[in-house]
Structure formats: C-alpha cells, structure tokens
C-alpha cells in the first residue's frame, strides 16, 4: 500500500481508450457537495437525486460556451463504489472533449488527477472492499483468460471471498472456545467446553487445509501460462512451434543448434492467452552463446505451465520417461522401420512424421509449414485440447493465485500442521491460548483483526452465560 495519497477530490477518465470512441466515462470522487460544481453545469444541481441519470450540458464557466452534452449520475456517500460522493459523467468519447472536461474541473475546483487505482484504494480505505477483494479486482481487470477472470470475480465477491469470511467466522469460534473454557467454564462445564474447543479446532484446521489445497498450484504458471517446447537438438521443436503458430517464426534448418536462444510468441486457445516458447536444444556445447541459451531453456522449463517434449524416435527408448512431461511428441516416425515395436497406448505421447508423407503415424503427416503442405488440422486440435484440459483442471478447485494470499495461507497451514498434535492433546490452556493467539496473528493479514469484544459478543450470542 502507498500512503502518499491525500483525501482531496480526484478526477480521472474511467473508461480507458487512447483513441476516440462513442462514449467516455469521467469519474470524480471525494467532493463535499454536488452543487459546488454548479457553475459548469446547465442543470440545477440542487435538484439532482442520487442514482438518477440526467442529461445536460457542461459549460465553460468563463466563456459560458458549451463543452459537451453529457449524461451524469450522482452517487451519494456512503452508498457508492468507494464510500465517497461520486459523480460519473458520460461524455462523447473524443480525446479533445475528454481533456477539456477534465481540465475544466481541475481549473475551476480544488480537484486533482487521480493516481492509478486511487478510486479503488479509497474503497478499501473506507472499508467498502477488503484487501483480498481489491486483489480480486486486480485479477478481474487484468485477466488474460476466462478462468482467471472467474478467479478474480471469486475473490472479489464470490466463493473465495466467502471462504475468507468463513475462515473469519471459524477463527472467531476457535478463539471463543478458549475463552469459554477459561472465562465461562462454570457456565458451560469443562467437558462441553473441551468438546467445543476440539470441534472448533477441527473445523478451522479443515478450512485452512482446503484453502491450502487451493494454493498448491504454480501461480506464475496460471497468471502467465507458458507452453515450453524442449528436446534434443534437431528433434523438430521449431517445426512444431511454427506449426502451432501457423506462421514462420523460428528459423528452421537441419543443422543441430539452429535455435540458440528461446523464442516466445503468444497464442490464444479458446480465449486463454499462452506464451509458446521454443527453447534452444539441450546439448553439451562449447559455443558461449548457445550455453546461455541452454541456461534460459532450463529456467523456462522449470517455470513452465505445460512442458512439451519433442523427441526423435531413435531417442525414444526404454530409458526415456514420458511421465516427466505433459506431452511427448515422437517425431520422424516415417523414418522408423520398426514402428510396430512401439506401444501406442502411453497416454501423453503422440507420434508423428515430421518430415515427409511416409510411414505409419497416428495423426497423419506433418512437414515444415507450407500453405499447401499436408498439415493435419486434427493434430493441432488434439494438442490444443490436451493443453486446455490441463489448464481447466487447475480451476476445478478454484485456485488461489494471488501471491500474498498464498503466502499467508501457507504459513498458517504450516503452523497448524506443525502444532496440530500439540494443540489437540494439550490441556494447558495457557499454552493453547498462546497457539491460538499466534494463529490469529497469522490470519490477520487475510481476514483482518478480530477484537476481544467481537469474541465476547459471539460467546454471549451463542451460549447462555451468567450465573
């Protein structure tokens, strides 16, 4: 968080376009009263009701000439996006008009341009959005796939937000259970309060475990998924790369080591944006530049979302382990004279001819990209399907992909895991209380501070207390 912001009213263009468009939305936030803007509006602003749309003219206060015809909506605090008074002006989307209107407000009133994200920052400051929601919003606005978009929505309003609220409630119950055992054992009884504690702990642990499960993906792989092609020099990676891109990109030749560094291109598969990376062939080399390329390759491989191994059929021996890759493509099958000796039922292995229209293959021949060449469209579809299936499988469990949340959840889970046995067998409530305090501190970053008054309130609401 940055804390450099003041609380002055701010203005910004909220619909982002750098070119002209039919409509643009300008937002002003944090002013005291709407009628203070009267001198630039034709409409009598004292008559404006919140949440109603009005059509009017914006006029230059000095020359009284019209700047633009606009529609505007006023949202009164605190019932607005960020809890402040907000004015949304929809004007014609011409860059000159937009600039004129913004300048008009800045010159005539005590308003400054908003910093990037400042509207939302204020929403968080005013408790309109939690930190986890703001993080969700960030995903929502910058998602590069429908799945990430959904993850953003989930964190913003949906299931992830609910999971955190649930964790919050379970933590209140857990903290309450210790206080019940200590402060109210005469009311509740020792056996029951012990049971309440164990139940609360089990529930809390279970919820944390579920959250932790949802962090066990590689988030960089999800936020910026890459498909990495690797394999021995001259196995045909670049050919495949170009084929998948349907364009000439890598320099293809039959000299091993042609691709010295990795080449990266974006491809979109069913709206999911992937980086397709053709890596330098891995081999021992004395060429300095090629060595650097190999280092890059190794890095790419370890960070990759989808690893695609391209292998010459000659290398495809018993010592090769296909399970280390998401997909193995065995090439040059047309040159293989004893293809019948291959078992074709390994699930993540495809076999193809790479150079030429010969031999027994599964998906038909494939050669270097050639508009008239014999390219099997079904192969591309099949590879895409395998990639996309993997991608979608990551989202079945609603993964948590924001780093900060993942870190907090991991440290919470690790603590619980380490002390789980201690906690469930310990009858020294001083020590239990110490552990629960620590757990509570760990959660604070995720769900906010829980005060003793909240805990006591929860106890008084749920249990009959008082001798």
């Amino acid at each position, binding site marked *: *968080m940055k*804390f450099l912001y*003041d*609380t002055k009213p701010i203005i910004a263009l909220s619909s982002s376009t750098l070119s002209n468009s039919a409509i643009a939305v300008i937002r002003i936030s944090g002013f005291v009263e709407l009628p203070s803007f009267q001198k630039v509006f034709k409409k009598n602003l004292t008559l404006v009701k919140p949440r109603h749309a009005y059509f009017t003219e914006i006029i230059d206060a000095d020359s009284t000439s019209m700047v633009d015809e606009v529609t505007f909506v006023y949202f009164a605090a605190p019932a607005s996006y960020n809890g402040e008074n907000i004015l949304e002006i929809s004007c014609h989307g011409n860059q000159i008009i937009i600039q004129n209107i913004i300048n008009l407000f800045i010159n005539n009133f005590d308003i400054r341009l908003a910093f990037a994200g400042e509207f939302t920052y204020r929403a968080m*400051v*005013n*408790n309109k959005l939690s930190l986890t929601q703001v993080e969700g919003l960030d995903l929502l606005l910058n998602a590069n796939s429908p799945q990430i978009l959904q993850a953003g929505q989930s964190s913003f309003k949906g299931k992830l937000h609910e999971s955190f609220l649930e964790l919050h409630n379970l933590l209140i119950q857990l*903290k309450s259970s*210790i*206080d019940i*055992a*200590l*402060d109210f*054992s*005469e*009311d509740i009884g*020792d056996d029951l309060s012990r049971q309440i504690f164990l139940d609360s702990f089990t529930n809390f642990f279970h919820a944390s475990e579920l959250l932790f499960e949802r962090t066990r993906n590689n988030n960089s792989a999800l936020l910026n998924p890459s498909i990495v092609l690797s394999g021995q020099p001259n196995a045909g990676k670049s050919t495949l790369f170009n084929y998948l891109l349907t364009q000439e990109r890598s320099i293809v030749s039959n000299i091993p080591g042609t691709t010295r560094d990795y080449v990266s291109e974006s491809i979109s598969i069913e709206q999911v944006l992937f980086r397709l990376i053709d890596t330098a062939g891995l081999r021992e080399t004395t060429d300095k530049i090629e060595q650097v390329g190999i280092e890059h390759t190794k890095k790419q491989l370890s960070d990759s979302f989808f690893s695609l191994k391209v292998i010459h059929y000659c290398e495809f021996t018993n010592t090769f382990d296909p399970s280390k890759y998401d997909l193995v493509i065995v090439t040059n099958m047309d040159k293989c004279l004893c293809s019948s000796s291959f078992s074709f039922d390994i699930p993540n292995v495809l076999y193809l001819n790479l150079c030429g229209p010969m031999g027994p293959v599964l998906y038909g021949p494939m050669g270097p990209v050639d508009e008239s060449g014999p390219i099997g469209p079904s192969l591309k579809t099949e590879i895409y399907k395998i990639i996309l299936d993997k991608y979608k499988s990551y989202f079945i469990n609603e993964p948590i992909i924001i780093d900060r949340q993942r870190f907090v959840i991991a440290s919470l889970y690790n603590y619980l895991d380490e002390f789980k046995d201690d906690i469930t067998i*310990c*009858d*020294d*409530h*001083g*020590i239990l*209380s*110490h552990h629960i*305090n*620590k757990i509570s*501190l760990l959660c604070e970053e995720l769900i906010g501070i829980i005060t*003793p008054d909240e*805990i*006591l*309130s929860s106890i*008084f609401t749920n249990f*009959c*207390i*008082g*001798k």
Partner: protein
Amino acid sequence: MNSFDIAIIGGGHAGVEAAWIAQSFGFRVTLITMPNVSIASTPCNPSIGGVGKGQVVREIDALGGLMGRVADYSAIQCRILNETKGPAVQSTRYQIDKDIYSDHVTKLLSELKNLDIIYDKVIRVVLNDEDNFTVDCETQSISCKKVILTAGTFLDGFTHVGDDKSKGGRLSCDRSGALDELFEKSELKTLRFKTGTPARLDAKTIDYSKLKEQGSDSRTQNFHFDHETKHRFQRQVSCFMAYTNEETLSIIRANKERSPLFNGQICGVGPRYCPSIEDKAFRYPDRNIHHVFVEPEGLNLPTMYPNGLSTSLPLDIQNAFLRSIDGLAEVEIILPGYAVEYDVIETTQLDITLALKIMPSLYFAGQINGTSGYEEAAAQGLIAGANACLSLLSLEPLVLDRGDSYIGVMIEDLVTNVRDEPYRLFTARSENRLYIREDNTIERIAPYRSSLNLNYQIDQYQQEYIKEVKLLSDILEKCSFISSDMAKIYKIEDSFHSIAELLKNPKLDIVGFLENYLIDNGLKFDFRVLQNVAINLKYKGYITRSQREHSKQKKLLSKPIIWQDLCESTNISFECRQRIEAIQPSTFSQLRNIKGIRPATLAYVAGRIK
C-alpha cells in the same frame, strides 16, 4: 470549614481503596459516604475474585491496596478456578462474609489518623479554582484540592421490583442526584446502565439434602502478601448447587408482561454476561435447566444468595419460580431480587489516570465508570487515588501497561472506547494470558509500586521478593546436579543441562518437584517466590517467543503520539479526526483501539512515528 487534600465521595470498594492509598502518601483525606449505607458493602454476590478478577485482587494487593487482605480475613469458602487447565490460567475466588468484610474495612479505615470519614449526603460540588473545590453536604461543607467521585449505582438511581419503581441506589437506600445536579452546568456525557441482583433466601428454609454441596478448598492461596499462604481466618462453610427446571422457566415465561425488563419500564442497558433469569428464559426458549449456586452471605447472616437467579419480577412471581426449584420448595424470601438503573459517565471523557480531561482535579472510579464487579471498582479507586496524590506531588502518574496487568487492560479499554454495556474483566480481554498470571503478580507489579516512592513493609517485602526471584532463577539455570534419590522419585535421566530445563517437562509437577529439590539441597525460599520461578521457567520458551514476536509491535504501540497534531493533519479523514479529538489518545495503542479508526489513518500515523 474543614479542608482536605483529597475528598472521596462514596464509601464503596472504589472509594475505600482510593482513601486507603491516598492517606498512605501522607495526605489529609476525607471519605464522604451516605449515612445508613455501610462502608465497603457487597450488595450483590458474596464473593471476591474469580477468573481474571483473582489476578486483579492480587494486583491491587501488590500495589498496596486493601481488598486482598480484607478478602483473606473474611473468606468463608475458597476455590481455585481452572485448576485443571494449567498454572497460567488459574484464578482464586473467595466467598466472603459480607458483615465481616464491611466491618473489617471500617475498622482499618477508622484507625488511620490522616483519614476522616464523613457520613453525609453530598448535594453539590463546586470547582472554585484549579485544585480548589467546595463540597456541600446536607449538614456541612468542606474544601479540598482533588475530588474522586465513586458514586457506584447511586447517581440518579432507580430500583425496580415488578411495577414497584422507586428512587434509590440500592433497594431501600437513598440515592444521589444526577451529575448535572451535583455539578452545576456540567456538560458531561452520560449513559444509562442497568444491573440486577437475585432475591435473598432465608437459609433456614432450604432443604440442603436436595442440593449438591461444594466445600472449601484448603489449598487455596491467600491474596495478601503478609498472610501465610494457606491460613484461614474464619470458619469455612459450603456452597450448594441447584438447578432450574421446566416449571421454573414456564412461570417466568407466562409473566412476560409483568417484567420491567420486557414491558418497557427499564431502559438502561444490562450486562450480557450476567443476564437475569428473565433474559435467560426468553433468549434461550429451549433451555430450562440453568445452574443456581446457593451461596451463604455470612457466618451469622440469615440469608443465602441464589447466584444465577437475578430478577426484577414482582415478588409473588419470584416466590413462585423459586419454590419450583428442587430443594427450595419451602423457601422464604427475606429481600426481593431487584434491578437498578443508574447513570454512568462516558469514560472516553477521562484520561489514562482516570481524571476528567476538562477538569483534571476531578477523578472518576468504580461503577460510575460503567464497570461491574467489586474488584474492577477497587482497582480503579486505587489508580485514581494514587494518581490524585501523584498529581499533588507533581510526579509522574501511575499508568499500568496492558501487557503486564489486567488493571492496565481495563483502564485502557475504558478510556479508549465508549462501552455499550457494563464492563467486566475477562481473561479474553488480555493478549498476554501466559504472562499475566496470579503467581507472578508481585514480579509484574513491583516496579509500579516502587515508582510511588513509598516506604512501607510491602515495599521492603517486594524488593526482597524480586531479589529472591532473580537468585533462584540463576541457581536453577546454572545448576545441573540432582541427587540420585530425587532422580529415582521423579524418574529423571542424567542427560539434562540444568534444573531450569527439567522444569519445562509438561508432565512434571513443577512446584512440588522444586520444593523437594530445594529441601534436598538445604535451600529455603519463600513459597510464593518458588512457585513464581517454577512457572516462569515452565513457560519461558513460549513467553520469550511471543514477546519477541510482539516486541516490534509493542514498541510501536507504546510510542507516544500528539493527538493535537493529528487533528490538524489534512491526511486524516474528517471522521477520524473527530474521533481522535473526542478520545485524545496519547499512545499509538490507544489510537489503534479507538472504534472506527481507519487502517489508512493508522498506517499514516505509524509511518510518521520515529
């Protein structure tokens, strides 16, 4: 006109503690108390101590207060609460004889030559000048420099028994006027609270054979430092346990419209942790069985106190529902249960010394501050009394940290937030249960007591105590020899670095072991020191770990802030500035505890603290 340094108005637990500590500074003190209301009476339950409260009584004793020694002297049944839950969270509770308690306080106070007790009703308090008050009573006026107001439930008090509503701070007692009658043109903000008490039962009309008996626990350790730890001054008696049943609750439920709590007659806010039986009946419609602890009010008093049956229903209904309880079929009521409504002040108008911000020579302590409980009241009286004296001496005020005392927790909670119900201490309110224990009270409080610069027996005792704690801890950290007899008894193997390390074993009875170990080695230490050191060592790892974790935060929390500067800052929202101005926090911790302070404000302030 008599003149005094300090006048204390109200002779309850807050008032007597304030008077006791103030006279110990050598000031001329008067305690003005209502005629016909006994001093330090216990008008509700007959017990002192309890979870969290036991710690407070020990803290009061370690600060040189009165409550601990009187509770020891008048104890007639003693209990250790939470005993099975580890040494850190144990608390002591005494049932006390109400008459002996009150008489003993009266006797101790009347022996003091610096203290005059005036039995009169205060009509008006006028501030003439800084540190110059005139206090007008019905029959006389006095002048003084500081006033401590400890009026309890007497400010504009009303009692309720069914539809019988009468003026009074307690049943059949007088009351005092509202604050604006006492202080002309006072603009103090007040709230209306309510509390209640059960009927007092004729002890002779109860069939004890049908109740479960609970005897006194002889192992309970006295509160006062100068009393032998397990010595009892009075004959010990039992408490008894009864249960409500379906009939009890249906009688109450059938008479909802006759309950002042539910028919609109009472509008004050009552404590949720101490609900009346009507509250329980309507809030938990499915529950009919509730505990009732039948507790003696004194060795020679004819009454029993049925704890758990607080009520303001009409007398005939009280009779009916009481008699439905097994063992109480023939019971006679000596005094009906009743509710009392009274004025309390919004404590955010007080500073951390309990002085009124706009009139710093006037202090408030006790139930008038919206707390409930004798122990909470006594602690505030002591703090207000000591601070009035320190202010007269122009010395640093006495401010206990919430990190090392329940008194500190309570006072900070009071002055930083407006309470919406009577405030009681719970251990849940502390962040530091493992450290704020009963056994180490003297170790925690001695630095505060010594800052008062007094020289009594207690001060010498505490100096000695602290030295012994250090010495014994040192011995145990360094010593690694253990006799073969001890090793055999406690099944200890040779491989350990020090006795201190042995004490971390969760299965070991550490206090018993240490006692034997010292005897074995011909060493003698005070039992309190021994216990304190043993438990310190048991939790040492946890405490240092959590203190390390909190130290950075703590450092920040204790940093002073200048609220006036914050109120002028344009970087803090208007709303926050208003709240800051109302509370006037002096540390970051107090700022953080203000309700509704925005995270951005905290971050802004934190970023600027050096």
